[in-house]
């Protein structure tokens, strides 16, 4: 496969190696994060006029799915402000590499809590309470504040970025789909690493990764710490073809399948709630604690934990039976989870496009009047105009869903011995795509 190593350009290498460019971006996102929490707590209760709602759920959430992930994998994680206070305390300084003397007990994360199970669980929780969080600036702010404090507390007890690795739902989301992203961090020359016994890169990595062993970009947060401490300049940051981590040779775990299925279910349910024609469903999602909401939650969980996993289980089982060499079901479920990655990524992009075109008009007025107090900082407060759902947007959504189906089918074929063996997975993808098409385009 072709790769373009960015570190070959001295200018790019200097930008990546210096802690300053990244630090400045992080400082800005941290201040923005604090401002978002405050505007959520103090600002207007009208969501469309509150910076917290518009920036978290329109600007950032859209940019993450339309720009950061598809063009930069986990690039958002490299400037995400949430782990920073804890990490700076752990490292004993802002510009310090890991391993110095800092605060914190540095305990190891309990083995039984490893994997992305809890991230998937967190994502389900967002979905269950989503209608409330997405529309209430105050609740958004409280959730963000809770996450900030939780990440700080965890980093004082456990080593490295425990919150990001095992709890952050967005980390799970981004990590899963970063496997399809076009950026990767890898070692340049395997032999140099093999001969280097100190493993400074592993010591420095806040994510607990060893670059030499990196086969997938799922758990690499692109923080560039390894690149900065490597004595042999042996770390490459590659631009690569999309979907490079998906193939017959890469290793995948069972929790990835679960994460992938939860993401698919969330895309379906969010589309149904926010874009579907069912007013009652929407009110049920909002009426947290009511019988209708429990019905909604039950159906959501049934979709996420019952129907989709059941269909996927059937598809993986059938694919396994159709092959010449049979592996056990658990391995099979993990292996075919790769199919869920492009399928889910494209579904989320299509879902995002459906509202991004319409809602992005709120962003500039929210900058001009962030708290909804009637300010007019950049003279654009009054220009809020809801865009229209154009046929262009609809066609784009259909096209993207089709790309997702084609892409996941291709992955299914690549990781199967025969097309016949891939057929159940292709059928699963087709069924999911049909459901998304029905919800988005109708």
């Amino acid at each position: 496969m072709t790769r373009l190593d960015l570190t070959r350009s001295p200018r790019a290498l200097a930008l990546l190696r210096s802690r300053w460019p990244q630090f400045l971006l992080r400082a800005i996102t941290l201040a923005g994060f604090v401002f978002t929490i405050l505007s959520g707590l103090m600002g207007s209760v009208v969501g469309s006029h509150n910076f917290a709602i518009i920036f978290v759920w329109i600007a950032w959430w859209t940019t993450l799915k339309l720009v950061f992930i598809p063009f930069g994998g986990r690039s958002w994680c490299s400037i995400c402000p949430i782990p920073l206070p804890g990490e700076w305390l752990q490292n004993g300084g802002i510009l310090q590499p890991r391993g110095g003397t800092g605060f914190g007990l540095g305990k190891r994360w309990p083995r039984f809590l490893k994997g992305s199970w809890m991230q998937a669980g967190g994502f389900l929780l967002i979905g269950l309470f989503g209608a409330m969080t997405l529309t209430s600036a105050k609740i958004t702010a409280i959730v963000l504040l809770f996450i900030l404090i939780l990440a700080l507390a965890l980093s004082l007890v456990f080593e490295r970025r425990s919150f990001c690795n095992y709890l952050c739902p967005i980390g799970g989301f981004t990590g899963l789909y970063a496997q399809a992203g076009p950026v990767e961090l890898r070692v340049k020359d395997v032999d140099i690493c093999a001969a280097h016994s100190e493993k400074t890169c592993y010591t420095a990595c806040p994510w607990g990764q060893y670059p030499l062993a990196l086969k997938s970009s799922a758990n690499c947060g692109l923080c560039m710490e390894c690149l900065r401490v490597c004595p042999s300049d042996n770390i490459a940051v590659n631009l690569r073809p999309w979907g490079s981590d998906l193939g017959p040779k890469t290793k995948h775990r069972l929790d990835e399948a679960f994460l992938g299925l939860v993401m698919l279910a969330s895309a379906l349910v969010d589309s149904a709630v926010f874009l579907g024609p069912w007013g009652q469903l929407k009110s049920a999602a909002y009426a947290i604690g009511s019988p209708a909401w429990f019905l909604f939650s039950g159906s959501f969980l049934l979709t996420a934990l019952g129907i989709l996993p059941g269909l996927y289980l059937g598809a993986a089982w059938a694919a396994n039976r159709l092959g010449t060499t049979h592996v056990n079901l658990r391995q099979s479920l993990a292996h075919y989870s790769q199919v869920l990655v492009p399928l889910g990524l494209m579904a989320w992009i299509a879902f995002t496009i459906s509202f991004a075109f319409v809602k992005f008009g709120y962003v500039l007025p929210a900058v001009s009047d962030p708290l909804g107090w009637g300010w007019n900082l950049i003279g654009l407060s009054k220009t809020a105009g809801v865009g229209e759902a154009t046929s262009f947007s609809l066609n784009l959504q259909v096209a993207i869903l089709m790309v997702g189906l084609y892409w996941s089918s291709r992955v299914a074929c690549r990781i199967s011995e025969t097309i016949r063996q891939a057929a159940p997975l292709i059928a699963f993808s087709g069924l999911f795509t049909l459901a998304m098409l029905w919800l988005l385009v109708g």
Partner: protein
Amino acid sequence: MKKEGLARWIVILLVLAAVGVPLVGWWLSKDLAATLELHARMPENGGWSVNTIQAKVGQPIHLRLTSDDVVHGFAVGRSDHPALDILPGEFTDTTLTFDQPGKYTFYCSRWCGANHWRMRGTIEVTGEGDPIPPDPQPLFLKLGIDIDAPQTAEVTPGMTASAGRGALFASQLPAYALEKDIYLSNSPAKVWLRLRAETFLSSLSDDDVWDAVAWIWQQHATPEALKSGQELYATNCAACHGESGKGDGVMVRGLPVWDPSLHTSGDVTHQPTGEGLVSPPDFTDPKVLLGVSPALLEGKIIRGGMGTGMPYWGPIFTSEQIQAVISYLYTFSFHSQEQPRGPSN
């Protein structure tokens, strides 16, 4: 280590700025103490953020109006202040000044939800000056009309009566027919019965007499009053009573029809009907409006409907406005223009 210090300062300064912007903004807005921020919310969400506004005669009150949920309106009853729209998350500034001490009612003027009419508040104006004169006792109280009792016209015309045609008989009518008191205290059906009993009108057919009644009613309504009544009706009444008066407004669709047997005000022990709202009557049905007098309609409007969900408008409409609405209401039962005789509709 110098760089580390710089980095720390940058973080501190940026975070301080992030905290400072809302805090300073909040502090500065406190200086606008003379401005009262009034948040409109649907009654389910808390209603008006301020229910009673204190004011002094002649001293302007600056209001910053905003809505926390849907589009609301702001209007002050019995004043010339134009109604304002309040959009969610946006601010509308306005200034009110009162010349006379007294209690004024401010209310929502946009149909914001099922409980829209509950969105009312009070402005208490104190200070020098003649207070607003108290309203004279409404006619329905003087006449002792039970405005909650079921009222049905004893007789109805075979076809919609027309004031235009009725004008032909104007010269034959007795003098009392045009007296204001007769109009106010009698239903059209009552006046029809009285005229029908007059021997000198025996040459007229029943429908001719109805046309004459329509003409009498028209004499008590000026075109200006009808126009004003129509506007008031469209803004305030049509939500429930419907644009066409059929009682099918957007707020009441699906409500049960009013059942006269629920009326219990004549009983010794009042059973709370309390079943909630009921559908308003159909004004286009001649049995409804031709059976009620202007005095009764005035009572209903001033006091509201007992147990029906009809709000009271006494503190909001002036007497002229109420009379205008009443004049307009009767146009649901009468043709005001000349209508050719045709088959009954």
